């Protein structure tokens, strides 16, 4: 007998309450772990003026790049918005139509983890003596300088998992894990697309990467699209 069931019946239902101006963390490092079907559902849903947190800015005209291209993203928080095949973001950025908060990748990861772990701020040596430390509080511990960085939270996280159970326990596939476990922690509402939804108890408690407490909604996408293939095919979403 299991009553707790976080499964959603559709992608559209899963993202229905994303509101204009929301902060949305989007899992993935390049295409690995990118929840492309959830992103497309969010494009269909229409929420705009979003702040999006992702390591990159997508490629081609699908997934995250399509969300940006469709004018839904007011601001990116990101470490590397300049990947091969990323044309949409640079254009909007140069023309001043999108804001960028550039964050070193490890600081981005730690800020997300801190947001999820109830840590409002922490110190890191990363970026000290560089332009990215400009305006940040500096402090010396044991003779070394550090900058203070803030925890980062979100209203929603859209992530991709390999397998899930109805309690929201998740496991991932290889390097598609990347930002998903910490984004699940940092978002008020975590929405997961999974390759297969299993019964509770089907995943060994020792190997669960994201415990269900961090997950709110799960929708099954058994055969997710492969972003690089869509890009190679010249697809444009919608």
């Amino acid at each position, binding site marked *: 007998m299991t*009553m707790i069931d976080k499964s959603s019946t559709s992608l559209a239902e899963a993202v229905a309450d994303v509101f204009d101006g929301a902060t949305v963390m989007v899992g993935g490092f390049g295409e690995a772990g990118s929840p492309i079907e959830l992103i497309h559902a969010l494009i269909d849903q229409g929420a705009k003026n979003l702040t999006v947190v992702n390591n990159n800015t997508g490629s081609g005209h699908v997934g995250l790049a399509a969300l940006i291209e469709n004018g839904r993203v007011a601001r990116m928080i990101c470490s590397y918005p300049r990947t091969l095949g990323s044309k949409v973001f640079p254009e909007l950025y140069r023309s001043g139509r999108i804001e960028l908060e550039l964050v070193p990748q490890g600081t981005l990861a730690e800020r997300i983890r801190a947001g999820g772990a109830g840590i409002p701020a922490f110190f890191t040596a990363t970026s000290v003596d560089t332009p990215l430390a400009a305006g940040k509080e500096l402090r010396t511990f044991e003779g070394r300088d550090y900058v203070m960085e803030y925890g980062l939270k979100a209203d929603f996280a859209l992530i991709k998992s390999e397998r899930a159970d109805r309690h929201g*326990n998740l496991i991932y596939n290889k390097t598609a894990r990347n930002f998903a476990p910490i984004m699940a922690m940092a978002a008020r509402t975590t929405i997961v697309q999974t390759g297969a939804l299993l019964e509770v108890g089907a995943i060994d408690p020792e190997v669960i990467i994201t*415990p*269900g*407490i961090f997950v709110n909604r799960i929708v099954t996408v058994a055969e997710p699209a492969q972003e690089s293939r869509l890009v190679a095919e010249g697809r444009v979403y919608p």
Partner: protein
Amino acid sequence: MTAENKQARGWNRQEMARRAALDIPDGSYVNLGIGIPEMVAQFVPEGRELIYHTENGLLGMGPAPAVGEEDPELINAGKKAVTAAPGAAYFHHADSFAMIRGQHIDVCVLGAMQISEQGDLANWSTGEPDAIPAVGGAMDLVAGVKTIYVITQHCTKNGEPKLVESCSYPLTGKGVVNRIYTDLAVVEVTPQGFVAVELAPGVSFDHVQEKTGGRLVAGPQLEK
């Protein structure tokens, strides 16, 4: 007060746990402190499912194992043998307290030495000079969990009130307690102070007020 009188005039430990269990919403993630709070798990109302967190690294804690089935490496925060329910997950201490500090746990039920009108909780130390101070996860729980319930006898063994105007013992946290389940009453901590929202059978509001150190207000619920 004879034992018979005592029983007639209040809830026993099981009943206090059962009463607290009634207030925990379906689907909550719950951390139960050591002692009476642990018993809450036995009284979840039919039709509700709660998921129990134990801060030593298990979400989805199940009931105690059968005698002889104990695993010394599967224990709860009180270091008692437990089981893992279907859907359980293990994790390390930093991840476990990320759940707590990060406000992912919905409800925590704790014991108390004192609770003030402002919801301050003292439950870790008498502050006596020769006491061995020990805090465990109590300060993390009250700082991080959204809703804090306390289950406690209304008075100490010496008859001193535990619900007080302000705590004389060192605090565990300031303004953290939401509700108190005692042998005499259910008391809500509000901006106006203690509000009795339910009385144990045979217990009068005046009696509870007499046993309460701080100011106690009768909630509208009592007028029914």
